[in-house]
């Protein structure tokens, strides 16, 4: 055989091989473990991360956040902004243009009417739409042609990327959900369990809180993707079950949200079957200090702004409590590589993160003691607890039942005892603590304690709504049935004014500057004591390629690109 013929044969073989290489579905099945199992595949009816992420294989938004937090076009041709004319100069409208090759998985074209319908669906009376906030302030959606939708707001909107952006706000098919508006939303079980979407996969079978089986979408816009032909999301068990199935036995390819003790995770990873991946977003474990008096003797005025807290109203006390905490040790014990010390309530995205509060990284018991001495909090009756004007520094410190939080409570209690502060600990079942039931005395909103610990974050990358949480009008009180996000009862007219300014500020640099100032105000007033910036932890087997952990959007955002690595 001549070299030439051999060359041709080789060339043909290579072509065949590369064609096979890029074939849709060539990698068979990928098995994913979500130990908190998906309950429903409609993110508008459930705000749970597990449900949103399981639906993100099927339902897609117009634009989403990539793994660096940048907004990238997804179903839209490009991300509209003022420069490209997509956002009007007065910031009251945004024009989205759909890609021209979009088909629903049933073969019908995606049109701007679907966008309009999605807005109508979420804002219909009686739907109980979990993402209603995303669509708040939209006056109308116009559809001049099948690919163009103009969203008009009732006021200038400097950050218009809420509706249709990110995994929490995908586009629904109008034809499928047309009969599911308002109170009838819950009756559309078939649609809620198997939505028709544009994503790389279609739902084949869904068993609530158990498994979801997906098959590749034959009408997906990229003919070579997804590389996996089938996806199985298994639910149930515990975080440990999930970690073991990936890292120790290799039964599954990917495990989500592995909140385990750092040493357990390290030991499992050392088996060598898989890799632990983690990333950071905006989830901050923090202490909130109560600026109002939670004394039960006050009756109906308990924990309301009428009665300032006898001790915590003094900024020196609040600062001393913060200085006494060794945040690095908390991170080491509770989170290991999946947590890091933070002195900011707004730790990310990078452009929004303040650098002005780094002093909290070092514990300073002596400094805290000096501060309290100088402020007149002395142990006048020699009982080991500082006091002033008959008020003892005795605090009730509450949190939800959780092994890590229990350790944190114990350690903080110890440190505070070293500065003459006596702490009583309390742990409340998470279902009650975070339940928000106005009839229960133990909710995070009522805050019938002096100090409480919990974690909170915000969705997406823009902190405007999050920072507005600490406005005066967000203070929970009997007048608003104890609803409101300002648990610490912080009320500062300057702060409120800055939230107003932010609402009308467009330029990103200006927004970032404002956000940093507001963060510094909260942190330097010591009403919120940030402790740990908590990361997301997942794990995948070594044979799974293409995983890019995204903490700003669905973790499964790029599942169309996942591949099976052939190991020699």
């Amino acid at each position, binding site marked *: 055989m001549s070299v030439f013929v051999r060359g041709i044969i080789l060339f043909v073989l290579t072509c065949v091989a590369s064609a096979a290489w890029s074939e849709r579905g060539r990698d068979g099945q990928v098995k994913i473990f979500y130990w908190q199992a998906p309950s429903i595949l409609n993110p508008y009816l459930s705000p749970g991360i597990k449900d949103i992420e399981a639906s993100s294989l099927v339902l897609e938004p117009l634009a989403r956040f990539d793994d660096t937090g940048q907004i990238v076009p997804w179903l839209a041709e490009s991300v509209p902004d003022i420069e490209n004319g997509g956002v009007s100069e007065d910031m009251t409208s945004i024009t989205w243009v759909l890609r021209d090759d979009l088909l629903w998985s049933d073969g019908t074209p995606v049109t701007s009417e679907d966008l309009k319908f999605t807005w109508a669906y979420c804002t219909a009376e009686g739907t109980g739409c979990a993402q209603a*906030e995303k669509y708040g302030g939209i006056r109308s959606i116009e559809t001049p042609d099948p690919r163009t939708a103009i969203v008009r707001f009732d006021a200038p909107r400097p950050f218009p990327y809420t509706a249709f952006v990110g995994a929490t706000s995908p586009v629904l098919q109008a034809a499928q959900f047309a009969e599911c508006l308002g109170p009838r939303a819950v009756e559309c079980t078939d649609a809620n369990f198997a939505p028709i979407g544009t994503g790389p996969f279609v739902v084949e079978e869904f068993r609530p809180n158990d498994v979801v089986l997906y098959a590749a979408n034959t009408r997906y816009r990229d003919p070579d993707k997804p590389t996996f032909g089938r996806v199985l999301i298994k639910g149930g068990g515990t975080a440990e*079950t999930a970690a073991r199935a990936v890292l120790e036995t290799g039964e599954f390819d990917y495990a989500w949200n592995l909140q385990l003790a750092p040493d357990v995770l390290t030991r499992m990873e050392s088996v060598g079957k898989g890799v632990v991946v983690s990333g950071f977003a905006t989830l901050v474990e923090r202490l909130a200090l109560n600026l109002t008096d939670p004394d039960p003797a006050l009756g109906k005025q308990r924990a309301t702004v009428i009665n300032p807290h006898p001790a915590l109203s003094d900024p020196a006390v609040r600062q001393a409590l913060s200085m006494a905490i060794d945040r690095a040790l908390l991170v080491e014990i509770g989170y290991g590589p999946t947590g890091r010390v933070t002195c900011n309530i707004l730790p990310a995205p990078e452009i929004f993160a303040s650098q002005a509060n780094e002093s909290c990284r070092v514990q300073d018991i002596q400094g805290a003691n000096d501060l309290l001495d100088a402020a007149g909090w002395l142990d006048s009756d020699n009982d080991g607890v500082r006091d002033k004007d008959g008020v003892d520094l005795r605090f009730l410190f509450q949190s939800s039942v959780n092994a890590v939080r229990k350790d944190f409570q114990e350690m903080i209690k110890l440190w505070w005892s070293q500065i003459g502060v006596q702490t009583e600990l309390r742990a409340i079942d998470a279902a009650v603590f975070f*339940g*928000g039931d106005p009839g229960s005395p133990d909710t995070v909103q009522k805050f019938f304690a002096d100090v409480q610990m919990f974690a909170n974050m915000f969705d997406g990358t823009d902190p405007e709504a999050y920072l507005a949480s600490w406005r005066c009008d967000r203070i929970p009180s009997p007048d608003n049935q104890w609803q409101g996000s300002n648990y610490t009862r912080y009320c500062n007219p300057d702060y409120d004014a800055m939230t107003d300014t932010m609402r009308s500020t467009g330029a990103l640099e200006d927004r970032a500057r404002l956000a940093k100032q507001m963060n510094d105000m909260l942190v330097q007033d010591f009403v919120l004591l940030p402790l740990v910036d908590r990361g997301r932890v997942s794990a995948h087997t070594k044979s799974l390629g293409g995983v890019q952990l995204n903490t700003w959007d669905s973790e499964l955002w790029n599942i169309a690109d996942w591949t099976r690595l052939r190991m020699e």
Partner: protein
Amino acid sequence: MLTFTLRRLLLAVPTLLFISLVLFLVLDAAPGDPMSQIPLTIPPEVRAEMRAALGLGEPVYVRFALWLRQFFWIEPLVLADALLGTGLADGQTRILSWQTRAPVMDTVAQRLPQTLWVVGTAYLVGVAIALPIGIIAAWRQHSVFDQAGTFVTMIGYSVPPFVTGPLVIAIFAVHLGWFPSVYDTTLFVTDWDSFTRQLRQMVLPVMVLALQTTAMISRYMRAAMLDALPSDYVRTARAKGLPEHVVVLRHALRNAMIPVVTVIALGAPAIFGGAIVTETIFAVNGIGAQLIDALNAGDLPTVQTLTFIFAVLIVLANLLADILYAVLDPRIRYD
């Protein structure tokens, strides 16, 4: 006998109604909230909307009446529709879970197979091992076998499944790699190969559960046999020169079985209740896992429905045990 059964069945109706009322009120008064699992980022107005969409705004008696109608009227109609292909329940709202917004009964139907496979098999295996152990241990009391049996059953009694579960996983799934650590609910038994895979994935959870059943039943069996063996009729049988196996198995065992059968019958409803801890460890996702999921999520319609089904099964199992008494022991007559 028939009148007794009928009378007991009629009596069960007010009992069950009372149980359902108590369950409803207790669950309603219990702390916890279906909104507790949603992120704190969801604003209060949206939360209020979501609560209203779940029907939480209605007073207790309205919700209870609605649940009664759904459970005793609409759900049976749905069942009839499914069996006969009729359309009696069209357009009626069934008992919907707050978590999945789907009919609770559909989820129960999805989950029963794996619960019956795993917990049911474990019960049968447990009983099958326990009875011989109990009989031999009593027949050769204080022997090495009896001592060893007592030791093993005490371990079964005292070591909870959240210890034995991870232990057997560490040994058989991680170290030896013989069996899977996660139960695959999508596996259908269609041929020999899938049957062996089903067997393999059942081994570990069945092992953990059967240890507990064995421990309990073998102690009852041993005690009952110890009561029966020194009795007059056993001595008479021996005196007649009957072979030992006839004396033990026919004369002593039959009488000793009466209390043991009661224990086995009363334990049977637990099969349907699933096994909360074991199901969670192996991700079996049966009824037990459904109950604990629903409790954690504050999904009251699911919790109410499941606990009430368990109540029905327990009432029926009690009745069954009473009837079995009469069948096994000719001295007992209910008429």
